[in-house]
């Protein structure tokens, strides 16, 4: 398929998909929950790509790297721009500690399991091994607020505090994961063959921060309030392309660079800045495009990939469950947290996929293909089961509150 048709198909699917993916109210409950977050678009991507009809072959996928990087920069920016220090200070300390605790425990458990499995089953060398395990762990440690917010609406107001807490946890645990990915990309520089290099890693990290601050300053100083809407759009597009271009050129993580720029902007721009509305207005189409790209990138990497994915999924579910239970006892967040609160954090969402895509485009090869296959499969499975787990947890919580009364 010609490049222009690929771009047309992707954007048309993103635009149309965003209209239908989240409008399933008329479907029966079981079907609606199964397809709640639009994960079926991963399979549409698979059907178009090398695993399906091969309409978009591997060579074309390579040429799509700048488009993917643009999407990643957008995802990193949109997340970073939610990280206002003023708002973070308002979050209950106990909940904040619980958030990072469950994220760290889950990350470490998955890191260990994946490392052992790959060390036994494959011979990738130390860089592919560690970087791959770290990326899978980072993607597994995060949770998605999208599923939670879609389900929260169907519960009475009495469940709102529980959903609010879970939404806070699932929004905040993404930050450290993206930072971890950024550090891995600096310390295992793809430009130097992917081997661990502390000197180059430190240099790249220093300059990443410097470039991110300079880019944030550039955007901040643009005086966009005097611009017409079409000029504002031009600046935003150019800015996103520049972030993704710099990251790709230096073989860094566009997610990480954009995250840092986003955090800097979130804490210097006013809340009513039009860039917030412009970014959030495109959230759904970009989400669908990321799902399709994930399906496209999903190349066959051996049958053991499915076994690894199942192991990672189980390890993740166990770690989330146990860490939330222990964290709730240790840190005692305000208003408490149900013992099975970890069930509410099963969904992973588009950012987990974005982490995987990031790895594939910067480190093409067998190690990244395997890691991405595992991430994508686990995300798809979790998106299917998460709504049922969330409902189970919320129903139990409601019942226990009734019983307590």
């Amino acid at each position, binding site marked *: 398929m*010609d*490049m*222009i*048709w690929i*771009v*047309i198909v992707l*954007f*048309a699917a993103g*635009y149309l998909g965003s209209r239908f993916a989240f409008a399933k109210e008329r479907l029966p409950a079981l079907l609606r929950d199964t397809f709640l977050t639009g994960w079926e678009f991963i399979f549409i991507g698979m059907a178009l790509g090398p695993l399906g009809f091969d309409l978009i072959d591997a060579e074309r996928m*390579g*040429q799509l*790297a*700048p488009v993917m*990087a*643009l999407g990643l920069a957008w995802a990193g920016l949109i997340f970073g721009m939610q990280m206002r220090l003023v708002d973070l200070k308002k979050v209950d300390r106990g909940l904040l500690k619980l958030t990072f605790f469950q994220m760290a425990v889950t990350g470490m458990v998955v890191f260990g399991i994946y490392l052992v499995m790959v060390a036994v089953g494959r011979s990738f060398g130390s860089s592919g091994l560690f970087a791959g395990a770290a990326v899978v762990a980072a993607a597994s440690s995060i949770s998605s607020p999208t599923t939670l917010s879609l389900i929260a609406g169907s519960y009475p107001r009495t469940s709102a505090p529980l959903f609010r807490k879970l939404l806070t946890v699932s929004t905040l645990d993404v930050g450290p994961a993206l930072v971890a990915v950024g550090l891995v990309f600096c310390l295992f520089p793809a*430009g130097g063959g992917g081997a661990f290099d502390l000197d180059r890693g430190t*240099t*790249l990290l220093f*300059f990443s921060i*410097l*470039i991110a601050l*300079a*880019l944030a*300053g*550039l955007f901040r*100083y*643009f*005086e966009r309030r005097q611009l017409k*809407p*079409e*000029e504002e*759009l*031009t*600046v935003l*597009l*150019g*800015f*996103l*392309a*520049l*972030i*993704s*271009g*710099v990251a*790709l*050129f*230096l*073989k860094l993580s566009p997610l990480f660079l954009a995250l840092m720029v986003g955090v800097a902007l979130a804490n210097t721009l006013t809340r009513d800045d039009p860039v917030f509305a412009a970014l959030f207005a495109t959230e759904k189409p970009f989400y669908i495009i990321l799902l399709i790209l994930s399906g496209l990138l999903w190349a066959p990497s051996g049958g053991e990939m499915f076994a690894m994915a199942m192991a990672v999924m189980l390890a993740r579910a166990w770690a989330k469950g146990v860490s939330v239970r222990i964290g709730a006892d240790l840190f005692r967040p305000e208003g408490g947290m149900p013992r099975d609160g970890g069930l509410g954090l099963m969904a992973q969402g588009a950012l987990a996929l974005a982490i995987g895509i990031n790895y594939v485009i910067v480190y093409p090869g067998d190690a990244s293909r395997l890691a991405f296959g595992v991430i994508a499969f686990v995300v798809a499975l979790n998106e299917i089961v998460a709504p049922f787990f969330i409902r189970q947890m919320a129903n139990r919580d409601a019942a226990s509150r009734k019983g307590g009364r």
Partner: protein
Amino acid sequence: MIGSASETARPFVLIGILLAVTSLAHHLGGGLSHEFQPEESALALGFLLLFAFLVGQIVRNFGAPMITGFLLAGILAGPHGLGMVNTAAVEPLRLVNLLALSLIAFAAGGAMKISRFRTRARSLVGMALGQVALVLPLAFLSFLLVFGLTGIMGSEPAVVVSAALLFGVFCVTNSPAEAIAVLSETRAKGPVAEAIIGVTVLVDLLVIFLFGVAGAVAHTLTGADDAGGSGFVGGFLYEQGVSFLVGGLAGMAMITYLSRFQKNVPLFLLGVAMVIVAICQKMDISPMMMAITAGLVVENASEEGERFMVGLHHSSLPVFVIFFSLSGHKVDLSVMAELWPLALLAVVLRVAAVRQGTLWGARWGGEEERVARHAWSGFVGQAGLSLGFAVMIATEFPPWGEKIATLIVATIVINEFLGPILMKRSLVAAGETRREGAADSQN
């Protein structure tokens, strides 16, 4: 008009930061390669969008239109300037050129409200024919003399006549791209703006026909291929005919969408422009003709013209920035250094002939003297279609066609800069630009 000191300095500071960040990235990444690398294209896209926009803001502060800045930014960023963007990196971005041409042609077609133009049909046709009748013979005869005396096209009379004829037709072309971009930036409305867009489109339609005829004559005179002139004309007419028909169908499809959906019109139009480019690449037909027809159909066969034009206005700026900065990037300053005396001669002759031809045509058509006095400057700029001609001439008539193509490009470069500046000045002088109009009313 120049604003406050800090406002004027701001784009310079931003350019400084942008250059520092991009240079640092180049340095850390080991410099730019000379082969196509996807990551360099992504970096080039981001850099060009912001750099060209900022240079556009600077020239706007000095009263020139932004597209002059976009062109200048392309030259400055390219290998003959700061070397921030290399040729291999911008190759994939050339797709944006076709997209831009489609959007420009949409706007050109959409600006042709037949009911509105009917009352002025005689004057518009008069101005268009006046230009053709004066520019073509004058350019043909002058360059017949120049080519004959200098011998740069060789000594064969058939080649000299063919070269002068093709160059004469090139001199007639206008630039809907520049006209639409300047009108879009200044949001100009009024009889001068209407005359500029109407005559520009009419002249370009005439030129498409004239180029077919001139190409056929050149083929016959020089015996450039077996099929001869008839094959050239036949292919040309087929291409334009099919483009016209498919464009009509695309216009009907757009009306169907616009009449049913209110949201996301800019995104939809961008999508349609991409589909048009893809169809034209597949069928080997003209995206210009197809999109002009589609725009014409939407404007004249439905009530959706206003929403169509507003949607276009909102979606086209990023595409224009890339289109014009890439045009600037393509300028080869070494060629300019070699051919500037001939190119300058062509520009001077052409400007004089366009001005006089427009005035005569307007007088014949009963147009107000004031309109013609301002409108002629809108016909100086040259870009998309003329560049397309240069490529076709170089391909169809080697080796002398390549020399003509080089001269054409050198002439376009000067006109690309001169045209928008003259046009904006005239629109301001005619009191048709929105910003200046508002300022005037406050005064």
